[in-house]
């Protein structure tokens, strides 16, 4: 029998039943458009407002600072392009890092084509930016610093408060891609000095296709999507009411249960990391040893290639991900892994196991039982391993 061990929570998460249940009435019963003034419309509007309040509370933000979007990618694009165009007369320089999500990187690259300048900060072997380099990169032309809160591949959590402070001192806006952090880490936008933050519901057991951008009151930003008067005229389009309701519930659940969630994740994560390290030789842990997401495991398994590994795991019912080029469509291995200094081969052999609330000890045991023989089998086929071991070991 095939098990179903889902270990790709950073890719997306299953929805929790309570969250779906809260959404259901808004599909077929309370289906009004929140912009309509009749009873159907008012019911929907109220539902959206409730969700907005819930999100705001989790961030120590005001409800009027939360703007719903069609996902984390849209929020990232909006924050970066919206600030760039709104402030283009003040300056045209943006600072980001080399290990951002593509939503940030490609938005920045697009702005470069439109005449903006972008500095891409290096990261160290753990994936942390250098705060000195950040300070030195700020010029009188700098209008925005965008540094992700936690990395989606290696789980490294940046020193957000320090970045927020630097940004504030120099009078530059600070956006952070909080898509992976939100729901897994306590976040106080006041304390941390965050001006804009992108988040996405489907990473915390909510629905796909709904995100939000936190925008500090008074921040100048152009809309990315123009049209109707929704979201205080800043983000047009009929609201995804059920999705927004689900996001609100997801936020509520995540932050009510945050401490327990974190403890469980860290326990399972460390069990997984230690188990892999103990049973498989030639493995290295990617990302920061302690300053990392509670549920993130990322290891490079030398001499084997990620897609083969994923396919093999899939055949025994384990769903994981990899930064290998062969899985990416693009043919380059993960820019994150390359930028923390991995060789092509190590980047190829990376395995990300991202944990979530439905995972159990037994599932970790199952992975630790299935993974080593798969690695042995693939290494036996690998011309790289051959060189090291000087021969094939029997499988």
């Amino acid at each position, binding site marked *: 029998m095939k098990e179903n061990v889902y270990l790709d929570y950073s890719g997306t998460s299953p929805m929790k039943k309570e969250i779906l249940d809260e959404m259901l009435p808004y599909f077929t019963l309370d289906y009004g458009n929140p912009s309509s003034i009749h009873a159907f419309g008012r019911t929907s509007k109220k539902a959206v407002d409730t969700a907005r309040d819930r999100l705001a509370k989790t961030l120590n933000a005001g409800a009027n600072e939360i703007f719903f979007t069609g996902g984390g990618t849209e929020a990232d694009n909006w924050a970066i392009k919206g600030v760039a165009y709104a402030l283009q007369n003040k300056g045209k320089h943006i600072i980001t890092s080399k290990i951002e999500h593509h939503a940030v990187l490609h938005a920045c690259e697009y702005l470069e084509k439109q005449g903006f300048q972008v500095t891409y900060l290096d990261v160290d072997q753990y994936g942390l930016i250098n705060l000195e380099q950040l300070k030195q990169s700020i010029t009188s032309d700098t209008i925005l610093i965008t540094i992700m809160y936690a990395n989606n591949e290696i789980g490294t959590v940046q020193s957000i408060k320090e970045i927020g402070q630097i940004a504030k001192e120099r009078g530059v806006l600070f956006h952070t891609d909080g898509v992976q952090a939100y729901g897994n880490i306590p976040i106080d936008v006041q304390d941390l000095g965050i001006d804009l933050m992108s988040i996405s519901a489907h990473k915390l057991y909510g629905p796909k296709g709904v995100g939000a951008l936190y925008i500090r009151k008074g921040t100048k930003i152009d809309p990315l999507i123009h049209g109707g008067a929704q979201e205080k005229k800043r983000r047009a389009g009929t609201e995804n009411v059920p999705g927004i309701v689900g996001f609100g519930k997801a936020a509520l659940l995540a932050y009510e249960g945050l401490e327990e969630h974190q403890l469980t994740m860290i326990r399972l994560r460390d069990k997984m990391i230690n188990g892999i390290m103990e049973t498989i030789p030639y493995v290295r842990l990617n990302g920061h040893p302690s300053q990392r997401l509670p549920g993130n495991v990322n290891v490079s398994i030398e001499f084997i290639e*990620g897609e083969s590994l994923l396919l093999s795991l899939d055949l025994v019912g384990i769903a994981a991900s990899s930064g290998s080029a*062969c899985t990416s*469509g693009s*043919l380059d291995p993960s820019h994150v892994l390359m930028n923390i200094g991995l060789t092509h081969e190590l980047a190829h052999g990376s395995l990300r196991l991202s944990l979530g609330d439905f995972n159990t000890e037994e599932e970790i045991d199952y992975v630790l039982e299935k993974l080593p023989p798969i690695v042995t089998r693939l290494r036996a086929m690998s*011309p790289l391993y*051959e060189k090291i071991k000087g021969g094939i070991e029997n499988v």
Partner: protein
Amino acid sequence: MYSEKVMDHFTNPRNVGEIENADGVGQVGNPKCGDIMKMYLKIDNDMITDVKFKTFGCGSAIATSSMATEMIQGKTVKEVLQLTNKAVAEALDGLPPVKMHCSVLAEQAVKAAIYDYAQKNNLHYEDLDDFNPNDDHDHHDDIEEE
């Protein structure tokens, strides 16, 4: 994503391993994705009598190497030199468009092994005149757009 045949050759790859004192050994790397394939040939009387491979690569790379070894077993060198990556892919009931380049590795690895055999034995094959084992085998045309 992959056909049943691809998955079959991926899970039960034929002819994995190496041949001691092989008559021809070829190793090629895929410059596009950084993957590596190594092919060992035993050649007797211009005939492939044994073949083994090792591959560091994706499911499609492993399956195409495996399929290629099956397809060349027992053939003459001349016949083998006619083997194209497309034929290997077809024998696997096709590959996703973005994975066509992986099959190029298999074709090139076989050619590299025969090239090595030819060098060692001072043989000349017309079909290898344009072949350079150290080329980056960059087959842009093999990646179909859209």
